[in-house]
């Protein structure tokens, strides 16, 4: 039976299945609420006041030179950032997953951390690391002169940090796939005397191509929508990208700008859509069916190369994680910004102030943990049936729906937030509850924003499943929901948990969406750090940032403790 015939038979079976129909309707309503509604509301705003005169907002946006400059800059920084992310992510991914390197879990753990640190904190710590007041450079006596140009205030500086920030996304996507690579393929190749190179070119790379493309697309999209890094490194240098242009328009000129801003964000949304379709097209050309997880994955012996490679990894980690983190810790322990840290100046006053005096700290921790946990949970629950249904749709409609889901993640958080204000400012019909000004609106925005983050690994895993398994179950009379739980779920569980975990770790530090949606009593950690930093309290901001890093590192360690009891691959930094 050819695959296409098999698939058609599958579709026929589905169309008569009532269970499946209800599931589909429910899920499509959910997508409509989470993805299409905010996008539509924005489109409406962008097209409002649309006349045929030359002064309608959309025309003005397209005619403005700044739009095109920002667009060019966005492409440049995100493209370069993605390149850096792919090189870093793949390098680490291959070495850590496929070789007999020592202390594997620790490498992965440390490589994941940069993503968990809020972007504006990353930017802050890098600035402190390379500026004239850098505590580390000052100790070494090689600090730059006062007022000398700051190398980080540049397009390349932005791209570098974007790359480091999104490298774990590529890494995770690749690793999920690498873990599933079966040993028997390699053995077969070795039996037929294939060279190392042939194994890479003919087996490993083709099987990973779709994961790398997915990771790169995720990195590109998250770089395109990143606000924290270009805001802190680009605005001072007069270098605008689309999200900072939008932010400046909103912050400087207020709500009259709303329709122009909506127009700008539609441009980003279209770009992302185009990118996603391209990615899906590329991925379809490189699909191979794998039978879930095998008992043992590939492992190359490194022999004399092991130590140099380990040292290289350590050097990279020092550069991207240890040094900025040290700079951050140092700046949380001084009494005021710009002071050197020594035995006389060291103080824990900032920590005391934030933990002991400010009620907002505990509240922000509580709110962020709550939002992140429930977003991850709900999205995991949704991703399973949604991924399943999407895989059964014809190629073209799947591409369309997957792209729709992608849009809210891709448009800058600040714009998504405006869409949600426009949608939910008034009390909900029927139940007369106002979501505005509650955690609920942030929660919904998170669901909308991170659905694609959770769905991506799930879809990628499902697309690798051999349909024969499910067909067998169907022939044996299993209904869709039963098949979903007994067959699909166990086989894709790792991807599924990886997705949920990603959502949690991204949401706990989220800034741009909550920056506009937060209200009294509903602060998030990202908002707290950004506001402190903006009002000049960098020392306090650093203290909170240090606490956040500790929290995330603690959570990740805790999960590692449970790793032996969980299915393989559930925790990305553990085998």
């Amino acid at each position: 039976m050819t695959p296409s015939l098999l698939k058609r038979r599958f579709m026929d079976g589905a169309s008569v299945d009532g269970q499946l129909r209800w599931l589909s309707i429910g899920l499509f309503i959910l997508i409509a609420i989470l993805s299409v509604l905010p996008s539509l509301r924005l489109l409406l705003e962008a097209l409002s006041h649309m006349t045929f005169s030359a002064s309608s907002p959309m025309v003005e946006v397209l005619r403005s030179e700044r739009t095109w400059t920002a667009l060019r800059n966005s492409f440049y920084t995100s493209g370069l950032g993605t390149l850096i992310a792919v090189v870093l992510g793949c390098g680490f991914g291959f070495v850590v997953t496929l070789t007999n390197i020592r202390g594997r879990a620790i490498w992965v753990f440390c490589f994941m951390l940069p993503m968990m640190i809020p972007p504006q904190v990353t930017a802050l710590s890098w600035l402190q690391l390379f500026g004239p007041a850098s505590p580390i450079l000052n100790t070494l006596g090689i600090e730059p002169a006062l007022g000398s140009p700051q190398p980080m205030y540049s397009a390349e500086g932005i791209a570098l940090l974007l790359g480091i920030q999104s490298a774990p996304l590529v890494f995770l996507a690749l690793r999920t796939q690498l873990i599933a690579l079966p040993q028997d393929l390699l053995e077969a190749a070795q039996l037929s005397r294939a060279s190392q190179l042939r194994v890479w070119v003919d087996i490993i790379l083709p099987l990973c191509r779709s994961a790398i493309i997915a990771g790169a697309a995720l990195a590109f999209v998250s770089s395109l929508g990143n606000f924290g890094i270009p805001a802190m490194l680009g605005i001072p240098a007069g270098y605008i990208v689309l999200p900072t242009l939008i932010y400046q328009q909103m912050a400087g000129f207020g709500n009259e700008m709303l329709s122009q801003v909506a127009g700008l964000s539609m441009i980003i949304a279209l770009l992302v859509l185009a990118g996603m379709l391209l990615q899906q097209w590329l991925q379809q050309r490189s699909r191979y069916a794998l039978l879930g997880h095998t008992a043992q994955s590939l492992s190359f012996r490194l022999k004399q190369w092991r130590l140099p490679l380990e040292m290289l990894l350590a050097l990279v980690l020092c550069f991207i994680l240890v040094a900025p983190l040290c700079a951050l810790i140092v700046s949380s322990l001084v009494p005021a910004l710009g002071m050197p840290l020594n035995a006389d100046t060291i103080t824990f006053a900032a920590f005391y102030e934030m933990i002991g005096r400010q009620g907002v700290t505990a509240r922000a921790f509580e709110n962020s943990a709550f939002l992140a946990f429930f977003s991850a949970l709900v999205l995991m629950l949704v991703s399973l049936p949604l991924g399943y249904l999407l895989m059964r749709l014809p190629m073209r409609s799947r591409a369309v729906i997957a792209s729709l889901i992608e849009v809210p993640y891709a448009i800058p958080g600040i714009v998504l937030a405006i869409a949600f204000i426009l949608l939910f400012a008034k009390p909900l019909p029927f139940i007369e509850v106002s979501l505005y000004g509650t955690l609920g609106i942030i929660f919904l925005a998170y669901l909308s924003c991170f659905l694609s983050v959770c769905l991506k690994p799930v879809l990628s895993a499902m697309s690798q499943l051999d349909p024969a398994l499910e067909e067998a179950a169907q022939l044996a009379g299993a209904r869709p929901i039963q098949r979903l739980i007994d067959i699909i779920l166990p086989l894709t569980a790792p991807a599924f948990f990886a997705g949920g975990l990603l959502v949690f770790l991204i949401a706990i530090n989220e800034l741009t969406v909550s920056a506009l949606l937060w209200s009294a009593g509903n602060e998030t950690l990202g908002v707290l750090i950004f506001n402190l930093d903006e009002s000049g309290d960098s020392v306090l901001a650093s203290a909170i940032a240090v606490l956040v890093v500790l929290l995330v590192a603690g959570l990740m360690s805790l999960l590692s403790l449970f790793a032996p009891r969980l299915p393989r691959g559930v925790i990305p930094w553990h085998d």
Partner: protein
Amino acid sequence: MNLKKTLLLCAAALAFPLSVQAQDVLTLYTSQPNKDAQMTVDAFEAANPDIKVEWVRDGTTKLMTKLRAELSSGVVKPDVLLIADSVTMESMVSDGYLYPYLSPNRDQYEDSLYSAEGYYYGTKLITTGIVRHKKAPQHPTDWSDLIKPEYKNQVAMPSPLYSGAALIHLATLTDDKTLGWNYYQQLHDNQAMAQGGNGGVLKAVASGTKPYGMIVDFLAIREAEKGSPIEFIFPKTGVSMVTEPVAIMKDSNNKAAAKRFVDFLLSKEGQSLVLKQGYLPARSDIGVPKGFPKRENIHLMPFNAAKTLRDSEANKARFSKIFEG
């Protein structure tokens, strides 16, 4: 369908705690730094134990964007505003969003510090002057120094697109006969960096990225007192000033508590708190905080709130054109 229902239930559950709040919760929107806002709230709550204050902090322009979005959707969250400048308050008055309240404490204040109808009251004086890093080679004494060649690419300033105080600073300097718009053009030609708000300037100067800057007095003076390697300079020509006014929203459901908040800020006790926080109090009989010169030695440049409001959009656009092309 179950999913949707669950979601709605979740949303309702999330919204619930806020809908059962006690009556005496006062919501404050403020642009004070976090630490000061907390201090203000703590002191007020200690003096009025029956009122609980919930507060939101953000930069004045961003806070107003948020508030305007809320107002246009018919939702009024705050009872009281405590934000950087009188120009923003003027615009709220002209749009009819504020509630006039004649506080009994107003007789202690100069007429120029509050609106005659009682729409808003200045609570402190925040001036904008020059800051330098202590290791910096130059010693600027006036605004005109910042456009000299030796300051090229060395100056940071707050952007009026982000900060209300910076917008008033711009209006004050551009109204000055000797400085004018030409001054801002020259600043741009000298590659002055117009960062986000005043916090950004503090970071740039204290960390040595830019050794000189324009900044609000308290940020620099307070950090210098703590040991940061910077010093604040009152320029010879004078300084611009904002008054951080407080006002009550017309649609506030809790006007009695709001009035008590206004009275508290204007009382001797409230003003001593301002002094303790390191600001110049609006009341002249309280004294000046550590690190400030004598009150009579601070020269204020003239400023017209109504005109500034009229010009503010044009000023922002013109600034944006000069600095961002």
